């Protein structure tokens, strides 16, 4: 206890110096932890978007559809899969899509676009598409060939509600067919890239346009009751329907598996770099403290303070110094993440670039308690490393020489 008391009081002998180090630790940790929280928030939101707006938890395709994107690579035995999903208690909702790629022409511009032929009710249950509508109605008010386009597509093609567009595609026989669609609604999601590439129409309209049967679907998107079940259920259905390709969202969304796996590492790398820089500041401060107190440490050794206790005293001083700064920095981060996690951080013009890359323009930082705890352990570890050299320096002081130092 006496060593702890001396160590604690020693910290406050040079208040300015200690406060500078404590502030550096607090600020460094605040910056590092908040950067981690910001990144985690981006990734969490990306995951949420990928699951809720794009891929659901897993999807079923013909094993060659994603590779070749051919109209006739539809799901064989669609009804059997649908029946199995309907009977599965863990399945929250599912929807089937008929997907075609075609030329999309407005009076202003012509370009390539992917049409997702959907059933509006089941699509809304899986992806909440109806909730992303910013103008118009969700497949209501236009009876023949309604189309739902994104705000980005509307701007690109100069379209507004009720405007007509012409879609040209190949039918089952390889013949070019065209059909006109009328804009029924405009949607917007967090993913600008997705919005720019996709439009929604009714599956029945696509099937009629291309002379396809009414069970001609290319994709079944399945939403489960729990996020954690995605991979195991994809595997389960892959085994049950081996002629189909069944993949979880992590493998469907390009780069997501890598992004998710790397996100934890990324957070720790940021904090580790900051702690590494702080380490030198702490080593410097503690070395100065040891050098200034050479005579005092010599005296302590002379009167009987063991080498172990001298070592412990410097280690404890360093730990205390770090442990005062770290909670301040982490608490400040916690408050900031709580606040910005509620209101979000609008990235403004930069956000549009992020949106084009598939990330939300408004980031809601988040950090789980486990990460705070892990960062705390990293600080502790860093403090121990930082203390090592000054503590050894103190232990190696020769008592009789140290006492004579002026």
């Amino acid at each position, binding site marked *: 206890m*006496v060593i702890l008391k001396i160590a604690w009081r*020693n910290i406050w002998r040079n208040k300015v110096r200690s406060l500078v180090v404590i502030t550096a630790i607090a600020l460094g940790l605040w910056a590092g932890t908040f950067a981690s929280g910001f990144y985690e928030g981006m990734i969490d939101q990306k995951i949420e978007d990928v699951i809720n707006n794009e891929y659901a938890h897993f999807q079923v395709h013909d094993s060659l559809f994603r590779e070749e994107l051919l109209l006739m690579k539809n799901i064989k035995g669609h009804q059997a899969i649908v029946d199995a999903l309907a009977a599965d208690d863990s399945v929250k909702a599912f929807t089937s899509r008929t997907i075609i790629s075609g030329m999309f022409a407005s009076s202003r511009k012509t370009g390539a676009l992917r049409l997702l032929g959907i059933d509006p009710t089941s699509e809304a249950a899986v992806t909440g598409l109806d909730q992303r509508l910013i103008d118009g109605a969700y497949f209501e008010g236009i009876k023949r060939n309604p189309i739902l386009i994104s705000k980005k597509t509307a701007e690109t093609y100069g379209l507004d509600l009720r405007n007509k567009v012409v879609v040209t595609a190949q039918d089952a026989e390889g013949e070019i067919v065209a059909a006109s669609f009328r804009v029924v609604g405009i949607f917007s999601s967090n993913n600008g890239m997705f919005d720019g590439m996709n439009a929604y129409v009714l599956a029945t309209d696509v099937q009629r346009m291309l002379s396809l049967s009414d069970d001609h679907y290319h994709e079944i998107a399945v939403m489960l009751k729990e996020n954690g079940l995605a991979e195991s259920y994809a595997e389960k259905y892959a085994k049950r329907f081996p002629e189909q390709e069944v993949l979880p969202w992590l493998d469907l969304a390009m780069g997501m598996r890598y992004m998710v796996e790397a996100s934890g590492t990324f957070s720790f790398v940021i904090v580790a770099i900051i702690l590494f820089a702080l380490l030198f500041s702490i080593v410097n401060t503690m070395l100065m403290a040891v050098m200034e107190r050479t005579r*005092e440490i010599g005296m302590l050794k002379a*009167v*009987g303070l063991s080498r172990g206790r001298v070592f412990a005293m410097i280690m404890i001083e360093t730990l205390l110094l770090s442990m005062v700064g770290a909670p301040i920095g982490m608490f400040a981060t916690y408050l900031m993440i709580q606040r910005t996690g509620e209101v979000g951080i609008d990235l403004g013009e930069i956000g549009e670039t992020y949106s084009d890359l598939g990330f939300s323009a408004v980031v809601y930082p988040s950090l789980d308690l486990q990460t705070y705890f892990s960062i705390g352990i990293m600080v502790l570890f860093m403090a121990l490393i930082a203390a090592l050299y000054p503590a050894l320096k103190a232990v190696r002081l020769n008592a*009789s020489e140290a*006492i004579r130092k002026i």
Partner: protein
Amino acid sequence: MKQLVIETKQLSKTYEGVVPVHAVNEVDLEIENNEFTAIVGPSGSGKTTLLNMIGGLDRPTSGGVKVNGHELSGMNENELIDFRLKHIGFVFQSYNLIPVLTAKENTEFIMLLQKIDKKIRDERVEKLLHEVGLGEKMNSRPAQLSGGQQQRVAVARALASKPDFVLADEPTANLDSHSTANLLDIMARLNQEEGITFVFSTHDQRVIDRARRVITLVDGKIESDERR
């Protein structure tokens, strides 16, 4: 009853260099309990080196030191630290108190290292600080005390562990005459009334005048050994 507390045999310390310096040269010395001994001599005569070797702070180049029958040269550093803690009290020229502790805590410090019971600690600290005239300054930190007062706390600290003897290296070098006289009174009283053995290194005539034995060192050798 007289008892040999310190015994050196052919004790030597040579500092190697371009020209080797024989700081202490084949010193044979015996100090008994209850002595009040001053080791005197000009600067560089080897006083501090001799005291450091007696206190186990420096190792001799040759010869040996026995304290209460324990041969110090055979001990490793940890054993020496432990031995100093239990057997030797130190008073240094520059007081060397722990600045962040109060007078009471500084005095108590060595007893804490010795894991002495709190009740005994409290009683002894109070008694010692009263004996050195600092009963009213127990809760003052060193920076709040004068040089003389700090050195009196150092004496109390040295005595707290009930050592076999106290080594004091130039204890009055930084004190004014009043503080010196005061400190010497205290140490002489502790020597006479409580039988505490003091060994000083000094070139302060006021200390030499009060000593009951004066050993004079010149060039690392004992030139004279006078008992009064």
